[in-house]
């Protein structure tokens, strides 16, 4: 499968860009050998080289953009994408750049050049990504999972347009990444979803449905392609066409027996994209829905996407109301791994519109999940929404897992977790959430989803606040593959012989006063809440003990009454004892109520603080990566400048320069992506914190009110009890 895919890619290259020993080249590049580059790269490079020569970077750049734009608008040819990329990039990158990136003015030109090169390098990276993993062990499991190579190979080869798709694929990614978040408009989002759609189509080898459509129906593919480029250019919202193609493709594909396996196989690449969520959603719906409904669903879905990305108020209006119950814990006995399974029942209460149908086709679902799966959901959501405070699952507990009250407690906590997720306008539409609620083959698919997203959801740390930053999400699938191959971002700077250094990676130092303050507050709050929790817990047990003592007391008074010293005293004492035992039950009820309101609240508060802390850590980690990459980039730029200063006109020098430039470009792109994420996460956290604090105060107040209200009621009951006793007996 993978093979086919890459081969296809190379085929395309060959078709478009002449001969080229692509394999060798790319590989060589990867291993930093000095082999000649393939023609495409050369072409592009020379293109850029011209600009470098002219040194009037900005002017030149804009000119080239213009040129390319003209070219680009033409057709959805492979050459279009770098242009488009540049185009959107231009808008945002320059504004961003000045803020984040402080380069010496002397390097202005090279900087601009860097951007140029980056384009190419992205393509390049893409290629690399596609090609390199062939030997990668990571992907070997896809081979092993028993996918039908044979059926795919001819298809892939037979599809010339696919190459176009291949090239088109980075487009949506890049646009999305580089789009300023402020800029997002309805239309743009619409186009985004459209792009996703396209993206899915283009990645069709990995995905069952669209893949087959393209494979079997090149014409549709072409149509689609055209549409996509049109939409990009015109910013129009044409959805029907591709969905039709989807439908067709599905129907076509229905004849393919391997649909499930293919799905599994294909999905990874799919989700590798940065727009993972929306794609996942598509994915999800298609999985959930009957093939015949897909068209509708995907239609609806894109609608939802549009509305959702609109103003938050709009999103609120469209807020779905779930009714989620976690119940019926059943102990599953397995030899070494017995565990409790809970049944998760979901009903979609409102709005009963078409759009809600797409989330849960039947409006309700019932699945069985175990605790581990809830953790998975937490990690997955955490990965999907960086900076968002995810409602936390209960803490792990090693001993006493099968005690009734523990199970009940956990059930309650998990239920409230799901309900909280369901109440969040963003999280409730998360594909993984829906998947969690409805998937029948959770065990298999969840692992795949985890793998695709790189969330490491199953490498779950006990500490809810520990996080894992998925390189795949951070850098995009292609770059991430390289990074991962080299052992992650942090080890990247030590790679190679030449720039091997003993210097430790730069530590991330928090600059933002807001975050320093908030983090400090967070810790203080947590310790205070923990104290409160402890006190509440103590009070709870003390209350129960007191209740026990009162019960004993009531018993002994009853005994005294039974002694029947005198008739009247007997009656009095037995009534007295009764009142005492009633008071005892009031006390117990009180304690139970507090356990359900205040204690559960504080407990969840504490756990959610861990979740908040996780968002801080995410930001930190991204900041850390940013530091590393910037460091690398700086080094590379220095090298590059050195090289450019003593230009040797021989080929070897030129190649070296090119190579350096390439590397710079890669790093630059990487830096930009990370910086973008960093900015995004920072804003998200700020927004989240504000609403989080507000909700928390409100929730706390509510549970205080409930608890107080309960206390008042039992107080009244108590008074009534005593007074009745008084009335009848004294």
């Amino acid at each position, binding site marked *: 499968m993978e093979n086919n895919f890459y081969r296809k890619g190379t085929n395309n290259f060959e078709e478009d860009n002449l001969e080229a020993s692509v394999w060798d080249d790319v590989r060589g590049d990867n291993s930093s050998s000095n082999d000649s580059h393939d023609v495409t790269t050369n072409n592009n490079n020379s293109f850029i080289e011209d600009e470098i020569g002219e040194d009037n970077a900005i002017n030149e750049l804009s000119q080239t953009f213009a040129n390319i734009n003209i070219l680009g608008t033409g057709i959805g040819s492979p050459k279009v994408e770098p242009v488009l990329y540049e185009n959107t990039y231009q808008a945002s990158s320059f504004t961003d750049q000045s803020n984040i990136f402080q380069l010496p003015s002397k390097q202005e030109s090279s900087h601009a050049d860097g951007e140029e090169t980056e384009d190419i390098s992205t393509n390049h990276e893409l290629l690399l990504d596609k090609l390199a993993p062939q030997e990668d062990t990571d992907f070997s499991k896809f081979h092993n999972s028993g996918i039908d190579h044979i059926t795919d190979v001819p298809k892939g080869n037979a599809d010339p347009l696919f190459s176009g798709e291949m090239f088109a694929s980075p487009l949506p990614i890049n646009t999305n990444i580089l789009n300023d978040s402020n800029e997002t408009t309805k239309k743009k989002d619409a186009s985004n979803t459209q792009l996703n759609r396209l993206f899915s189509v283009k990645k069709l080898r990995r995905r069952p449905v669209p893949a087959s459509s393209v494979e079997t129906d090149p014409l549709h593919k072409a149509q689609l392609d055209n549409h996509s480029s049109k939409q990009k250019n015109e910013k129009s919202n044409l959805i029907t066409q591709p969905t039709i193609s989807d439908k067709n493709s599905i129907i076509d594909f229905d004849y393919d027996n391997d649909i499930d396996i293919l799905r599994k196989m294909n999905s990874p690449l799919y989700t590798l994209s940065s727009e993972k969520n929306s794609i996942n959603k598509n994915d999800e719906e298609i999985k959930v829905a009957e093939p015949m409904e897909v068209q509708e669903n995907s239609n609806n879905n894109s609608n939802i996407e549009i509305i959702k990305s609109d103003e938050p108020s709009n999103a609120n209006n469209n807020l779905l109301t779930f009714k989620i119950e976690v119940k019926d814990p059943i102990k599953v006995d397995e030899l070494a791994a017995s565990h409790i399974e809970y049944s998760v029942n979901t009903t979609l209460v409102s709005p009963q519109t078409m759009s809600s149908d797409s989330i849960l086709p039947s409006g309700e679902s019932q699945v069985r999940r175990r605790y581990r799966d809830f953790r998975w959901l937490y990690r997955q959501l955490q990965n999907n929404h960086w900076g968002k405070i995810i409602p936390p699952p209960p803490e792990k507990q090693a001993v006493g897992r099968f005690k009734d009250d523990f199970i009940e407690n956990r059930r309650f906590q998990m239920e409230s977790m799901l309900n909280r997720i369901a109440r969040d306008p963003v999280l409730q539409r998360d594909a993984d959430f829906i998947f969690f609620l409805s998937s029948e083959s959770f065990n298999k698919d969840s692992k795949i989803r985890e793998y695709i997203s790189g969330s490491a959801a199953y490498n779950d740390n006990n500490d809810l606040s520990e996080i894992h930053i998925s390189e795949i999400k951070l850098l995009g699938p292609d770059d991430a593959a390289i990074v991962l191959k080299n052992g992650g971002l942090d080890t990247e700077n030590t790679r190679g012989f030449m720039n091997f250094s003993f210097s430790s990676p730069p530590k991330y130092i928090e600059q933002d006063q807001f975050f320093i303050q908030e983090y400090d*507050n967070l810790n203080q709050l947590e310790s205070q809440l923990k104290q*409160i929790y402890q006190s509440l817990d103590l*009070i709870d047990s003390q209350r129960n*003990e007191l209740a026990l003592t009162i019960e004993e*007391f009531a018993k002994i*008074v009853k005994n005294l009454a039974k002694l029947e010293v005198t008739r009247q005293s007997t009656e009095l004492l037995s009534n007295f004892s009764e009142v005492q035992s009633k008071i005892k039950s009031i006390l117990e009820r009180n304690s139970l109520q507090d356990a359900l309101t205040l204690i559960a609240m504080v407990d969840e508060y504490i756990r959610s603080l861990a979740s908040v802390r996780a968002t801080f850590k995410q930001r930190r980690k991204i900041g850390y990566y940013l530091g590393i990459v910037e460091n690398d980039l700086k080094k590379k730029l220095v090298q590059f400048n050195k090289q450019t200063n003593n230009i040797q006109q021989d080929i070897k020098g030129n190649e070296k320069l090119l190579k350096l430039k390439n590397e710079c470009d890669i790093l630059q792109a990487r830096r930009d992506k990370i910086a973008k994420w960093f900015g995004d996460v920072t804003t998200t956290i700020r927004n989240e914190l504000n609403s989080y604090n507000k909700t928390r105060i409100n929730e706390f107040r509510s549970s205080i*009110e409930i608890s*107080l209200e309960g206390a008042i009621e039992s107080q*009244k009951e108590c008074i009534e009890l005593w007074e009745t006793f008084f009335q009848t007996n004294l």
Partner: protein
Amino acid sequence: MTSSVPYFNEDEMGHNPFEDTVPIWEPSNVATENHETTNNSTTTSSIDVKENNNNNRDDINESLEEPISSNIIKTEDNKETEGNSDQESEDIRRNKYLPEFKFQSKHYFHVKVIGLERVGSNSNKRENPTIIFKYDTDIPLFRRKKSNKIKKTIQEFKEFYKYLNSFVFECFVPTLPLPYTHFGISNQEDYETVLYQYQKWFDRVIKDPLIISNEEFVYFIESDFNTYCPINHHNSNRNDLNPNQNSSFIRYNGIKRKTMKQFQPPYDNNLILAEFRPLVKTLYHLCQSIQDYMLLIDKNFGILIQQESTLGKEFIDLDSLIGSFNLPENMTKNFLPYEKYGKNLITVSDINSVLSTMNLATLYDGLTWVVNDSYGVKESLTDRHFVMRDLISLQKQSKIKQERARKYRNKRDVNPIKLDEAIRDLQSVVKLEQRTTLKLHRITTNMEISRKEWLKWYEEWIKHNIKNYVLKNIEYERKKLNVMEGARLKIRGTNVKGGLSRLGRDHLVLSNQNIQLSQQKDIDTWTTTTRHIKNMKEILESSKLEQENISNSDNDNDSTNTTYNTLCDPKAAVRLLGRANFS
């Protein structure tokens, strides 16, 4: 020590030592003159006791002497009918054995406790306060028939009690109430409670004719402040004919008592008293364990209270902590509910700790008296057993001596000195036996009466304490409710939208003034039962009247007296509150 199983009548015909038939009088072929002497001697001895004690008080001697002698003569007359004493009405027996009741009906003794003084060192303040009371009597033994201010320390009371307990076998001598309470010394409630309890004690004491007719009582009352010690202590049995037998009228103490208690109690043909002892004993143990549990509750409650107030403080800390953060927009520190809740918790826990003390002060202290008293009753019943045991041994002795005397008599050639000796022995034993029998009868009869009194007292006392307990509970639970509702208002105030009271009515305009407190002047909102103000007024008036009556009856307007009446008010108010709820 449970009561022994009653004998079967047919089994032990004539062998039952506790049948009311006095066996010594049956084999009275000894001599009628013997009989006479015994009679006389008993009478005189009993008079002697009195005479010894009250040398210069002939009047009382007269009053006492006559009934006792006549009493005994009467017993002799009714020898045949005496067999079934169970059927004898209590009145008859009382008249027969307890002339003191007649004495009591002739005279009166009123006492009123009017004050309490706590002076000196801390422990003295606590353990040994001074009780101030006044009395009014026509008992001839008293030199002063009336006094308005008598002061006695608790120590003196204790001495007096010790004496009574050791020498007045016939009664369940009321134990002394605790001189302090859990209210803590030197506060109003403590003052009132101690006063009330000592008044109760006096009431019980003067109800018992055997005690007020005891000259020791007079000594106690008439002695100067802080000088009383038992006067009859050593000479009470001085005139006993046989000094060796004195023990039968002295309370066993120490190890001897403990050992004696281990024996199976003698058969008791008085079922009522036979059953009473185990009952009282169980009561004693139960009350003790109730007290233990109350202490345990108090301890646990105390911990809970402490934890709650800690929690309250933590909430207040949380408030200031969150308040120091960057609050979300549209929120100020006033919007935080934590501090209000924390304060509420602290106030409630304060009230709880007061309530916890109140619970101890009302029910626990009350039970202390029950425990002490039931122990005293039990020991008195044990003493009765001892008397019974003594009687058995005396009866045996008299039988032996009778046999010996008869033997000597039948022998012609017996030494007349020996015979005389034997007869004298027999006479003295029979005398003692008679005395003991009489004593036992007196004890049994009086105890039956005392038992009724005691049960009545127990019932009243338990009721009184539970009532106080309940009233305190109601009072403080209501206070708690009030505090909580106030806190609820405040917490709702932190939310512009009105919090939970909105109940989803999003467009309802809420103002916090709308929320009513659930406790109002004449009705609680959660119940339909109204408190009738009219009735309350009546009660108030009646209680005022009562108070006036009391103060009228006290002709002398002591400052202490008036203060007592005015100070009585809060308590009365609580009582009114309680009663007012349901009338």
